[in-house]
């Protein structure tokens, strides 16, 4: 079955060597999301510049390979993006995961799209959808400047 498609090389790479996996020294946005079902948690830190672009972004968290990989890849993708395009990417990625439809990602630049599309199989594992979207929920929340922990 698709189990090997679920655990693609890129996902395994990011889950075992997560990028930006720390608390930022200085940040002005942060939010934590929590998956009640499995206990996964993702805390996202963002340094938003005056011109509202994401200067730096990082995460701390506990969770499965999908969740950690998604967090790691997210930080890579959202870095240096404007707030507006970050929201747009977050929105697209969430849709993409739920629908397993790559065309939803068409507005994302190609280098990002390649990374994001490695999560294509997650939709086939309904209980794992939240694992993939958890850090994105935290990021969206952080950008909205909500610091309250969210039970995603």
């Amino acid at each position, binding site marked *: 079955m698709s189990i090997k498609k679920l655990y693609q090389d890129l996902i395994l790479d990011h889950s075992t060597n997560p990028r930006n996996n720390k608390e930022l020294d200085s940040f002005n946005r942060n939010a934590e999301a929590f998956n009640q079902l*499995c206990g996964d948690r993702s805390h996202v830190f963002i340094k938003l510049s005056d011109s509202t672009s994401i200067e730096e972004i990082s995460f701390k968290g506990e969770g499965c390979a999908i969740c950690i990989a998604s967090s790691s890849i997210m930080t890579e993708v959202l870095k240096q993006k404007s707030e507006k395009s970050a929201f747009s990417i977050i929105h697209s990625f969430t849709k993409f995961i739920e629908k397993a439809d790559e065309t939803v990602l068409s507005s994302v630049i190609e280098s990002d799209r390649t990374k994001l599309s490695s999560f294509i199989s997650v939709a086939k594992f*309904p*209980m794992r959808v939240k694992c993939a979207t958890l850090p994105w929920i935290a990021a969206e929340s952080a950008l909205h400047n909500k610091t309250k922990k969210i039970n995603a």
Partner: protein
Amino acid sequence: MFKDIKNQFPIFKNKTNGKDLVYLDSANSSQKPQSVIDAVSNFYSNEFANVGRGIYSLAVNASEKYELTRTNLKSFVGASDDYEIVFTKNATESLNLVATCFAEKFIKDGDEIILTELEHHANYVPWHFLRKRKNVVIKFLPIDEQGDLKVEELEKLITPKTKIISVTHMSNVTGSITPLEEIVAIAKKHNIPVSVDGTQGAAHLDLDIKKIDCDFYSFSGHKMYGPTGVGLLAIKYKWLNDFDPFIGGGGMIDYVSKKDIAYARGVWKMEAGTMPTAEVVALNESISFINKLEKKNIIKHELDLTQLALEKLKTNNSVKVLTSPKNQGGVFSFNIDKIHSHDVSTILDQEGIAVRGGHHCCQILHEVLNVNSSVRVSFGVYNDENDIDALCEGIKKCQKIFEKK
């Protein structure tokens, strides 16, 4: 109207005391169609797993089915996004949840609440607990001679201390239907939330919770052709946020440490421990069953039977029907002169007729009506005119036995 519908209910294949079963106790609990029974077996035989916990396929599938019932219940009660459905063990637990959680946050010593003289014990005892615990004053909206609520007196009962109004959708004794929209309109003027005991309403009356606009609506699976062991609470979402949980355990927490606990949000907060899984899953078939027949047909069917029964009983001078409500559902109660309701029930039982004798968990109403007990007749989709004939014959039999002397 529902031709051959008895065939869908296996219970009617058997004889009771050698007679065909004449089941006139649906207000107590309804019989179950084959589709509901099969849904239970099928779930246990092919799909069973605990929900909301495992991430393996069986558990995922079970969780999806469980949530599907929730979704379908939302349409069933006519809920908008403002409402959520919480699963409990019975209507009684739903009503206790409302009273307890509401009181914990919003009722203080000496506050007042309003019930009615029609209430089932399930919508009185939980408030009585508060009377003991918080000196809450309980007021009862009275009924008139016809047995209908004197809604025009509601306004007079309300004071600045009134914190909640809790009323039944329909009396399980007299069939009197409560004018909920009127009551909610009055309550709204005073900013008082309204809790509805919908146990008799859900399967037998028109139900559009958006239109009623109440805050809580409690009901039971087993009275709507569904399995025992599952109750429902339709609740305005905002209360789920305000309330603390009613029962604590697995599945309703967010995070737990030795020092503190963070509760889950939304419906999860209220569903602790292993829920009545097979029951919730099978309940979906009850909803389908009712939807297929269509509520409006069910209402007409049961009302027609009620009218017919009341007309036929009118010709018997010894039969006293308790009240004659203006707006009545498929339930009524009566007494036969000088024969106690339990004797009536026992004698009818010998004829295969199942009716309940007693106070039907409505002792206050019986006190108000000045009778010790009564015989209740309540209809379901499977009843027909033959059942009414059997009842009338049975009543004559009772009279004959007691005349003998």
